[in-house]
């Protein structure tokens, strides 16, 4: 018969995906190792903040799997987090100065509204990467998802820079208001795919996009101008590529050996005539 003897207690081990308890931490001078395995993001971020207050300069997070907001709002410079595993949503959200290196893939929303600092992802990253980013550098080795760099913005010396080593999907640089987006198309799992999708720079009204290679006219709207990057543009791009190549262990000269396409907005107010009175 189908019905088996009733077992009252659920099997041990899985009631919640994460345990709400402090992670185990080992300290060696100003280097701290945190075992994040199965620890809820709140306790994990509490531990990170405590260690930063306690003077840690390098924090190694082992066993990370999907915990959200790692490094959220860390307003400190000279501190580096190393994430081993799969970084959860909104990695480096509001981060202001810290450096974060991920050895694995990152989920959606890396660098959300980030102010300054540096994020290096040695893997792929998901959708809405660099959402509303307003400073700092985000470097991704592999492919990235949809709506990358959506509404990035710049103010005076705060100029966000986002470099993706693989390919991107639709809406790359959507509503972009400032900063620099770079797409290389090199470290990709899908050689057949186009380097970027449609709606490239849709609604863009500030900043600049560099794409290694060319784009088709249908990929972009009338609000942006597309040209081949000239000497001045390459002078702006070169130091960024050199920094990226250094972080990824790639050859900058090889990356720069192909022409780049430069995409800039035609107007700071692309919809002025649509929504404002004439």
């Amino acid at each position, binding site marked *: 018969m189908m019905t088996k003897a009733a077992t009252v207690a*659920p099997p041990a081990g899985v009631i919640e*995906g994460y345990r709400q308890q402090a992670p185990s931490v080992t300290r060696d001078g100003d280097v701290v190792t945190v075992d994040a395995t199965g620890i809820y993001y709140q306790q994990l971020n509490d531990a990170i903040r405590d260690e930063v207050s306690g003077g840690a300069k390098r924090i190694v997070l082992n066993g990370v799997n999907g915990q959200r907001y790692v490094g959220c709002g860390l307003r400190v410079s000279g501190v580096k987090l190393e994430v081993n595993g*799969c970084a959860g949503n909104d990695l480096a959200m509001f981060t202001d100065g810290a450096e974060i290196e991920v050895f694995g893939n990152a989920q959606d929303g890396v660098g959300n509204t980030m102010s300054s600092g540096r994020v290096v992802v040695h893997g792929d990253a998901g959708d809405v990467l660099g959402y509303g980013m307003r400073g700092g550098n985000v470097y991704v080795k592999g492919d990235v998802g949809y709506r990358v760099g959506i509404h990035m913005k710049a103010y005076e010396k705060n100029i966000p820079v986002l470099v993706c080593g693989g390919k991107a999907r639709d809406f790359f640089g959507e509503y972009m208001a400032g900063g620099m987006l770079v797409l290389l198309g090199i470290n990709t799992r899908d050689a057949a795919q186009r380097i970027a999708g449609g709606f490239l720079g849709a609604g863009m009204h500030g900043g600049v996009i560099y794409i290694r290679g060319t784009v088709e006219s249908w990929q972009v709207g009338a609000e942006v101008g597309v040209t081949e990057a000239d000497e001045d543009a390459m002078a702006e791009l070169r130091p960024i590529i050199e920094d990226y190549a250094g972080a990824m262990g790639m050859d900058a000269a090889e990356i720069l050996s192909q022409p780049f396409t430069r995409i800039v907005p035609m107007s700071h107010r692309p919809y002025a005539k649509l929504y404002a009175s004439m």
Partner: protein
Amino acid sequence: MPYDLSRYDGFDPARYREESPFKIHGGCGLMGLCDESGALMSGEEAILAMAVQRDRGNGLGGGYAGYGIYPEFADHFCFHMMYHDLKAKEEAEAILDQHFLIEVAEPMPTRPVKGITDAPLLWRYFMTPHQHILDEREQSAEDYVVSVVMLVNSRVDGAFVASSGKNMGAFKGVGFPEEIGHYFRLEEYAGHTWVAHNRFPTNTPGWWGGAHPFTLLDWSIVHNGEISSYGINSRYLEQFGYTCSLGTDTEVAAYLFDLLLRRHKLPVSLACKALAAPLWDEIDRMPEDEAALMRSLRAVYGPGMLNGPFAIVLGFNGGMVALNDRIKLRPLVAARCGSKLMVASEESAIRTVLPDPDEVWTPKAGEPVIGRVKGMDWPIHGDLHLGAAQISCAVTAVEPACDAEEVTV
């Protein structure tokens, strides 16, 4: 006329202080797991994948569907039922008894779990349709079952069919998914395919019948997102005898797949293109014969197109299909590990079940990820290659599923 402010609760600072420390994350979470070799996996695997995505829901809905879980009754239709009271149970059982030979009727095996309260009466039935009625009506068993499901859901107050397929079942309710999973003792079941859902209700209430998956026959749907086209979809489905009575937009997706795959016999890739249709300018860039096919598909299935943001997983006996809306407004990640194919809202869910996958990728918007169990009959006409003209023929040739008025397409 001025507003009568006394009618409203107004702003209560005490209540705000009480709630403000908490952030409700939300977003819904889902997963699908299929072992294409047909090997069975414990329901615990699905629970594990949902537990790490706990923050994607708010405790107002969790659910699972498992396939291959009832090998002892593989040829029987299994109805999982929810009853608000004994009167509803009596009325629904009278309908079931009238339409089916009931082999087994028993309460669902559950265990008390902290966090799960207010469960309705949960029963399951293993049944076969009365052959003489099928002969009388000249109806297929599947169409017959659909008509009974619609009848119970729309006519019996307080009775709902949670699932109605063969060798499968849906287990769902109000709670976090890992609580629901343990409540239904899913670790005691083994299936080759599992789909699961964590709900964050937005437009409709969180209630037991409104939790995902939504099912019909073997089909089960879990869905993250919002079907803005619910109104036109449900009116379109009514023409084919489907009644939408569960108060959640996802219901239309389950019935649309039944219509397109089982009754119109579209290949799954085309059915997905009908639901997540390519944009017109994309169609203009396609080779001419493909463009003609897509234009035809959009013309015929315009009212069936799902508008709005979604990630869905369709489970069935023989595999699963995962699909995003055409501009990827909801997350979906896929992975392969040996014979196992898995999809989830977050990569972390995949890595919890498959710690070292062979490959992980994000599917493109509107392009299905399909898992098929080896050796199982493909329930849909996947090898049929339809041209533009054949699509119109497929639609006009079908019979209504139950006693709806005749429809001319």
